[in-house]
């Protein structure tokens, strides 16, 4: 776990004046953002605020969406979706190495599965996995490509609370080992605070709050100092005392 401070100076993602709209309704409105290489960033925002739209713009997946602006991102980008999106007709290992070619692809796939704790399940069908296991396989599929940038759109949103905490540890651990830049979209303020070193809040089509979380890892949900960040983030998200 060598500190990659020199990498932090090189931006992994640069967005300039990004605009996206659907049928005349503006969702991203001149958004500027820079993500340093190797940083773990979380993106918060109300439902419908445009988090997925932003992620898809960075991933280059928004064909046919109206908009302008400049997007620069690394070549090797992996995306983890809220659903594991494993192809049900391919066995787990074949899913992990989907799109990976060359010799050693299978070996790398096996190693990635072992890394997420799924050694021995290579020949299973996705339909035989539990929700958490499927999401682990999806993480293995994202990481086996050694991405410079990992985009994750509420990857734990469909998991139960206990599995989610396990997955948090796993994701942070994987990040420390491989050091991709991470942009994790979530609607869970605690998830953002515990995992990320920087939390963004998307608001009215722009980054409304950009908060560095300077606390050592691993962090616990009960850490009292995190409460301060939580207050600020909830306020930025428009959650008032009355709502709680």
């Amino acid at each position, binding site marked *: 776990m060598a500190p990659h401070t020199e990498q932090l100076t090189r931006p992994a993602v640069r967005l300039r004046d990004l605009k996206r709209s659907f049928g005349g309704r503006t969702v991203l409105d001149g958004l500027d953002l820079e993500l340093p290489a190797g940083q773990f960033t979380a993106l918060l925002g109300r439902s419908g605020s445009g988090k997925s739209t932003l992620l898809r713009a960075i*991933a280059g*997946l928004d064909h046919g969406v109206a908009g302008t602006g400049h997007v620069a991102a690394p070549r090797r*980008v*992996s*995306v983890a*979706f809220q*659903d594991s*999106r494993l*192809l*049900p*007709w*391919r066995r787990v290992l074949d899913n992990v190495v*989907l*799109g*990976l070619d060359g010799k050693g692809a299978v070996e790398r796939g096996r190693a990635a599965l072992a890394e997420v704790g799924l050694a021995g399940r290579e020949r299973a*069908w996705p*339909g*035989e996995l539990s929700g958490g296991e499927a999401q682990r396989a999806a993480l293995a*599929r994202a990481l086996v*490509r050694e991405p410079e940038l990992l985009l994750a759109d509420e990857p734990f949103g469909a998991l139960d609370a206990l599995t989610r905490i396990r997955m948090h540890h796993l994701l942070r651990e994987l990040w420390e080992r491989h050091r991709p830049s991470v942009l994790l979209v979530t609607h869970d303020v605690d998830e953002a605070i515990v995992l990320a070193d920087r939390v963004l809040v998307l608001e009215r089509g722009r980054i409304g709050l950009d908060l560095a979380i300077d606390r050592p890892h691993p962090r616990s949900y009960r850490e009292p100092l995190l409460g301060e960040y939580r207050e600020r983030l909830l306020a930025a998200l428009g959650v008032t005392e009355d709502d709680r």
Partner: protein
Amino acid sequence: MTAVTTTTAAPTEAGALPPVRRRRRLAPGRRWPAARLAGPLLVLAAWAAASAAGQLDPAAIPAPWTVLRTLGRLWTDGTLATDVLTSLRRAGYGFAIGLAAGVLLALVAGLSRTGEALVDGTVQLNRAIPTLGLIPLFILWLGIGETFKVAIIAIVVYIPVYLNTHAALAGIDSRYVELAEVQGLSKPAFVRRVVIPGALPGFFVGLRLGVTGSWLGLVVLEQINATSGLGYLMFQAQNYGRTDIILVGLLIYGVLGLVSDSAVRLVERRVLSWRRTLSS
């Protein structure tokens, strides 16, 4: 808020807790082996019993053993073997050509917009015309020989194969398309690993309809325009009032239909084995 208490019925005295009785199962129990044969066997037994008791007019419904004896006789010293072979060849060629055409057209229409523009509307138009209504025209074009019969069967088969396969190819889940883009699949790899495997369940629906259609087409063609084959045999038997021969023909049609359907099911189970694991 009240404190949550775990309710384990207050143990006033040891042993007062009632033992758990397994609940009555509401779902039907396990299937017995070859259970689906039970119904047909029962019908057969009733038929045999009624015949033996003299309750059935042998001219209308001959006894099962009469039918079997006729079958044996026709097979050894009649033309039954060649008739069955002739029928099988017609159905087989027609089915094979229809299957190939259906799959090919579905791929063309399902994988390219140009293909869809050219093929889909044409097939939909073809589908609107009942294929058996084409018989007079095809006889004029192709004569009354084998070619025309194979052509009609092929058309009966290709339509359901095309419709189901094309719908499955066109209806591919957009989430999987997005995944393929993220994983950087090339277009051929995308087609091979995502589109085609995803369309297989739909293809098999079309395949089974096609198999049924090929037998149906065969029966109709042979009973109205043939000079050989199983249907011709039955048509002649009708002229001589030989219900036993007609029943032999029906029996063979039934066996052929059953065997072909089972074969398709078997292949389907093998190819789509991943489906059995889906919990949802």
